[in-house]
């Protein structure tokens, strides 16, 4: 059960920033009216963020990862269950690696 000080600091920083998003955001939006464009920007941030993440992650992996991602996406479209989709993605990756990809 080790806790390194630098790791603990990094985790604390993440925790504080996350709580500021949860609670600080609520407090600010309760007190002031934000410009509509800022609202729209915040509303539109999640999907491009994940699109950028997936593009970066796949650019550092091989073709098998792209194929397994397609399987995972198809599972999510079909069943709408994160547990199932992640399972399908990992199983596809395992299958492709086993097949020598």
């Amino acid at each position: 059960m080790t806790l390194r000080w630098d790791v603990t600091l990094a985790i604390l920083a993440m925790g504080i920033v996350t709580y500021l998003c949860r609670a600080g955001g609520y407090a600010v939006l309760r007190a002031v009216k934000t410009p509509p464009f800022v609202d729209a920007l915040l509303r539109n941030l999640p999907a491009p963020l994940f699109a950028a993440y997936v593009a970066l992650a796949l650019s550092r992996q091989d073709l098998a990862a792209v194929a397994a991602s397609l399987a995972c996406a198809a599972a999510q479209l079909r069943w709408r269950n994160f547990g199932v989709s992640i399972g399908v993605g990992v199983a596809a990756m395992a299958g492709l690696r086993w097949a020598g990809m």
Partner: protein
Amino acid sequence: MRVVFTWAGMWRGVRRGVPLLLGIIPFGLVVGVISLGKGLSLAETLLMSGLVFAGASQLLALELWSDPPDILAVAIAALVVNIRMVPLGAALSFWLNHLRGWRLWSSLFVTVDHSFALSVAEHRAGERDAAFLLGLGILTWMGWVASAGAGHLLGAAVALPPSHPLFFAATATFVAILVALWRGPRQDIPPWLAAAAAALAAQALRLPAPLPLLAGAFAGALLGARMEARAARGARP
């Protein structure tokens, strides 16, 4: 209608949250296994899951993890991913605006996408007890911390090599989240392509992490917001 805060409401939240655990536990296991892969101890994994309690930002921070950790990079990762939570609290104002003190600030601490969505649905169905959100949040928090710890223990028990297909779960999780956010080709394809292109371009310019991610996220969000504004203007007579 009057908003209340009772033990009965909290308990209803706990009970309604049980099926949500099916979606949370696999994600927690993945975060636990990946934390182990990145060299975090069990105590550090539990601390991160308990304090941050936001899976996508934890996975992203772990992707950027180095030894020693780059504190600024992981804090920025948490900010960028969790900024989506800013409007969640405002959207729960039908309950939160009636709370003060620990009831308000602890409810906000445990609010995640799942409990947000379910609380909005329950409110629409007539739920007037604001403790519902806290009960739901506490259950999901416990499920999250326990499953991350279990993932860490499991990973240590079977000693997975870094190339193991299980670690593909991080990418798979983001692919699944992305698909869940899909609305339609006209709305989504341009901002998603802009995000991917800006991120890859920033990476090609060898900008340090998490700048490529930020460049992509904001390029896509700007385009999405502009398209929304243009559509709203076009809809006006």
